[in-house]
């Protein structure tokens, strides 16, 4: 029998309670969670967060650069939307496997990051660009009239006013990445999907399914909530908007 930790374990002691959870497979046993938190659940959660933060940060940097380019130069928008839309519609599992085929990526964290980043681009690019374009012309005129340079206008007028739309985009992108990162174990990259797949192949071990699945759900909800708080703090004038 292979336990979720990956170690082959012999279960001899029928009287012992240590493994009764695995043997009887009840809906949930707290005992298993506390025993495996340090070795299974916490590393998976940490890795999941690391994957997500890196992907959103890189995606945000690329999208911001592209959106600023498209904001200044009109014709940039169309090709960017076409490429990112194509990336966005490739089924995630297929994209992971497709990227593994690229020689310098292979089964690595880099492959997972490339896939995750490619799913953030469309959402972030669209939201940042829309946010910038929705800045009222009068406000821009006023800024120009006050003698602001293009750079000052961007940092002190346009970006702050675009903030609600940008944060709305970050919310959706982050939640999407958290969801997609659960399938990273397909290419041998650890995430909260690792304990989920381990539990599925371990005779549908329920405690682990619920614990790891629940952690992924809570992580997504927590990230979503965190962005709402950030927005209230940074852009108190704007109500949370839905796209």
């Amino acid at each position, binding site marked *: 029998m292979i336990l979720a930790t990956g170690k082959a374990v012999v279960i001899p002691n029928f009287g012992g309670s240590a493994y009764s959870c695995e043997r009887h497979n009840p*809906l*949930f046993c707290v005992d298993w969670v506390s025993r495996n938190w340090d070795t299974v659940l916490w590393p998976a959660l940490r890795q999941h967060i690391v994957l997500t933060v890196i992907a959103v940060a890189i995606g945000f940097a690329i999208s911001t650069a592209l959106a600023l380019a498209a904001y200044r130069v009109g014709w940039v928008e169309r090709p960017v939307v076409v490429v990112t839309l194509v990336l966005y*519609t*490739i*089924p*995630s*599992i*297929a994209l992971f*496997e*497709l990227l593994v*085929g690229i020689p310098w990526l292979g089964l690595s964290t880099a492959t997972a990051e490339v896939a995750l980043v490619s799913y953030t681009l469309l959402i972030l690019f669209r939201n940042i660009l829309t946010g910038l374009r929705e800045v009222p012309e009068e406000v821009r005129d006023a800024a120009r009239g006050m003698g602001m340079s293009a750079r000052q206008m961007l940092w002190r007028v346009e970006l702050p006013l675009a903030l609600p739309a940008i944060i709305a985009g970050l*919310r*959706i992108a982050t*939640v999407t990445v*958290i*969801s*997609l990162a*659960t*399938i990273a174990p*397909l290419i041998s990259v650890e995430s*909260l*999907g690792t304990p*989920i*797949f381990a*539990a*599925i192949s371990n005779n*549908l071990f*329920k405690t682990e*399914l*619920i614990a*790891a*699945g*629940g*952690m*992924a*759900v809570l992580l*997504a*909800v927590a*990230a*979503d909530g965190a962005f709402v708080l950030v927005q209230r703090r940074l852009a108190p004038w704007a109500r*949370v908007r*839905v796209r």
Partner: protein
Amino acid sequence: MSAFGGAFTFIGRDGQVPGAPPLPSLVHLTLGTLEVSAIGIAIAGALAIPLGVWLGHIHRGSFIAINIGNLWRALPSLAVIAIAIAFLGIGLANVELALVVLAVPPIVTNAYVAIDRVERELVDAARGMGMSEWQIVRRVEIPLAVPLIFAGLRTAAVLVVATTTISALTGYSGTLGDIINNETSYHLSGVLGAAICVAGLALAVEAALAGAQRVLTPRAMRLR
């Protein structure tokens, strides 16, 4: 790039791999994907459209329709399936549950916004003509809201079709996910071929719903 050529050859061979024992037909798996998706979209629509329309009609519950919708959308599908397996076991039921969870938020949000934004004067005029609340919903608000309601359905449908492939990861077979999740047997060209079929199916479902929207809109407008 040869993988792309191989993908189309794979589709042309109806999902068979030369030298391998007979595999499930690609047409069969595509129809299986369509079936799983259609059930999910139908259940989600049946739950979400009435909810969104009702909330929109009473102009209340924007918090539920919009914020809970957002929160709900945050749920990772694989995690939902994992939790559902613990309760329901492997099978169609928990795949559908995950798909419905995925599809409900965009449908509710759009239906709510669509009905909520119908001009108040029109509703007041209908009420003045002696229409009952049900008649107002049925004959004034819904016809005017058809485009946005369908926008929600179409968004949800594309999401659902793309997500059916995840069901294979949990051991439920009969969809194109079987191919995408089995690179060992099908090789990269097969995986790509199946991905192309999923994308094609998503576009086809989207087009079918767009057609349904076109058919429904003018007739409904005539009722007014």
